[in-house]
């Protein structure tokens, strides 16, 4: 009897010890993002710092990162979530947010947002309300990006061209600097990467011409007068030898590589690509940016604004832990860490840091943020936005390769996109 009692006590102590040991184990959280934790990209170093910082800052949760290529991450998340294996925390690009909401891979953040003070909510440069889908805030921006005109200062100087102030001047300068080896103006007009670069170049010019991407019913109106004007301008670049027809086979990565190789003079470029484009002996500090010139000098172009956001996965079993991580990621130290990697912080208070007043990089980022605040335009895109981008890329290709009438090309794109919606 005594032995039995002793054994029971020993077992109970054993289980108790096991239970304590288990309680001490941090809860594992999966964070899926397009950024790799390792690698030479300064953003990767910043991400690693943020992850390590969070894991050291508390003992309840431990975040591990799974990096998935940006072209595959959305598909992977949808499939994994359907299999009940989605991530706890998820990085979503604003253009894909509607798709994730429709695919039910993410959960609304309303309840968490309600716990934040109004000042904290207002601190976001891109309002969380801009990320509402179906009445719910689905994500919070951790960075923002704005599109600019990137140019090679040395090429323009050598050709005695000033920095363009209108689109006409862009075309003229591009034609002048173009040679057999150099393309004056470049854009990615292939369907690679879901035609994203074609849309990124087209959209601000189209808005500047007074265009609206969608009507009230969600049908695209890119075949409007503004669309025709924009596509005609792009087609004329090729006719004037300011841009080569080879752009139809180039995506965003190709244009960036070409820029770094010194074979492109100007492009419309996202602020997040500036650092990598400069990181080449050919370009270096000769790669400069300026706001996208308007159709006329007195009417500046709207700046396209987008953001990488953080949200919580539907299948997450530790949503509160995921929220803790998101709060840390959105904190000022993390924002500054990313800013030093060339990323625009998403919160106004982050720009109070001395980094933005002291370093040249900080000053440039602050300049972009001011530009985004003054002229930034962000539109929530429909869930099949990538299909529209692809149809637009095909329309640009038809105009460039076949000399197709821009109106007919855009009509075909609009018909293809609107047709599949019904």
């Amino acid at each position: 009897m005594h032995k039995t009692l002793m054994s029971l006590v020993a077992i109970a102590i054993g289980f108790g010890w096991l239970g304590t040991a288990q309680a001490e184990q941090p809860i594992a959280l999966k964070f899926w993002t397009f950024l790799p934790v390792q690698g030479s990209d300064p953003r990767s170093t910043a991400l690693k710092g943020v992850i390590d910082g969070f894991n050291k800052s508390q003992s309840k949760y431990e975040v591990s990162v799974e990096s998935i290529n940006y072209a595959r991450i959305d598909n992977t998340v949808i499939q994994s979530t359907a299999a009940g294996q989605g991530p706890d925390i998820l990085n979503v690009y604003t253009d894909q947010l509607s798709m994730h909401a429709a695919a039910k891979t993410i959960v609304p953040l309303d309840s968490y947002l309600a716990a934040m003070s109004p000042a904290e909510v207002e601190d976001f440069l891109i309002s969380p309300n801009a990320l509402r889908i179906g009445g719910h805030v689905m994500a919070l921006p951790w960075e923002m990006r704005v599109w600019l005109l990137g140019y090679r200062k040395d090429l323009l100087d050598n050709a005695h061209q000033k920095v363009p102030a209108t689109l006409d001047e862009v075309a003229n300068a591009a034609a002048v600097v173009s040679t057999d080896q150099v393309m004056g103006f470049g854009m990615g007009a292939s369907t690679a990467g879901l035609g994203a670069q074609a849309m990124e170049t087209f959209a601000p010019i189209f808005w500047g011409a007074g265009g609206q991407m969608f009507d009230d019913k969600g049908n695209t109106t890119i075949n409007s007068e503004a669309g025709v004007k924009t596509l005609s301008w792009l087609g004329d670049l090729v006719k004037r030898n300011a841009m080569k027809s080879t752009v139809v086979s180039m995506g965003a990565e190709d244009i960036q590589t070409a820029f770094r190789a010194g074979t492109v003079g100007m492009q419309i470029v996202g602020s997040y690509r500036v650092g990598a484009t400069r990181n080449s002996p050919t370009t270096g500090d000769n790669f400069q940016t300026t706001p996208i010139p308007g159709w006329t000098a007195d009417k500046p172009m709207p700046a396209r604004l987008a953001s990488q956001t953080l949200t919580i996965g539907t299948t997450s079993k530790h949503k509160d832990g995921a929220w803790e991580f998101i709060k840390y990621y959105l904190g000022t130290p993390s924002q500054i860490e990313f800013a030093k990697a060339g990323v625009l912080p998403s919160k106004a208070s982050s720009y109070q840091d001395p980094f933005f007043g002291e370093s040249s990089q900080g000053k440039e980022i602050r300049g972009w943020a001011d530009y985004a605040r003054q002229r930034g335009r962000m539109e929530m895109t429909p869930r099949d936005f990538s299909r529209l981008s692809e149809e637009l890329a095909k329309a640009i290709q038809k105009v460039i390769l076949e000399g197709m009438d821009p109106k007919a090309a855009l009509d075909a794109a609009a018909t293809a996109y609107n047709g599949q919606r019904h």
Partner: protein
Amino acid sequence: MADLFKGVTHQSKSRPPPQDYDLHHELIDVGQVTFPGTAEQAYRKGQTSGFHRFCQSRKPSATHLLRATMNAVISQADRETIGHHRPRVKSAARRRPLNWLPPLFIVPAVALVFLVTIYPVFDAAVLSLFETQYAEKVQFVGFDNFIHLATDPLIANALSRSLVYTLGSLAVVLPLSLGLALLLNEEFPLRGLARTVIVLPWVVSQTVVALLWAWLLNADFGPVTYLAQTLLGYRPLFLASPTAAMASTIVVNVWASYPQATLLLLAALQTIPNELYDAAKIDGTRSLQALRYVTLPLIKPTIAVVLIQLTLLYFNMVTLIYTLTGGGPMGGTETLSLRVLKTSFEDWNLGQGAALGLVITVVNFAFSLIYVLALRSRHAR
């Protein structure tokens, strides 16, 4: 290898088979090499070959071991052909209880094939009957997805591009591989190195091949474009028009896949006995005639296998095309398989994607059947 084989064959034929030969085929482990045949049998055969010396020295050369192994195998084959022990084999088989071990070993493989091939095809067949929203089935729609495919001009265009891509690649790969295999079958210095180098493209993944060629052919900074411009005086646009992009994609595909065909054909060429060529020479045939009347008929089955393999490979190819051109420009390289990917995972219409996938499976079966039937009818003649 051919000479070694010839020598062993003569040797085994010159020696009468032992009367007490046991057809039971067991394995004798000698160091790291496994010998087929009984120990006594191997020893007996080894007396006139390297095996005897191996038994004495315990330090066999690779040639000795190989020769001894072949002695054992070929002698056994000779006896089976002569038919000395057939009655014993049959009676032994009758007496032996049913061996469940082989089917047991096959079970995991069959289960794996079922899990990764048969079940997904069945699942796709079910999915093709539904309207889907992302990964969810929304509504049963019967054959609507198939009807949509039949009426969608995108699909018809993709099918024609698939045929151009597949047949175009085959038209280049087959003659090229046969030519290379014939060359590599000849004796020349550094033949081993040449064989290794020629196989290299095969070991590179399709993604890497596509990225490599995308860089090489890039119109702005590609070395091939630069070289062509230097030589021709103008800059060829390899990927910037639908026709040129299709031609370039075929060339890249040929580069990536010719080693597979070359190796198979080379292996087939090595099985043709030299005596046949000697006899043909005595009959007065020239090289081309020997190729036509001796080589090609004998490797015809291998050519058929190569045709089936490559047709299926090309028709189902996605990675290389997607990475190299993304299906563009203007959809000029968008094949049926690429359309499946885009329909399923870009447009997120899994129902239609599954239907299209099934259509491709049927087309694959049709291709295989045509080749097999063609091969059989030629054999029958």
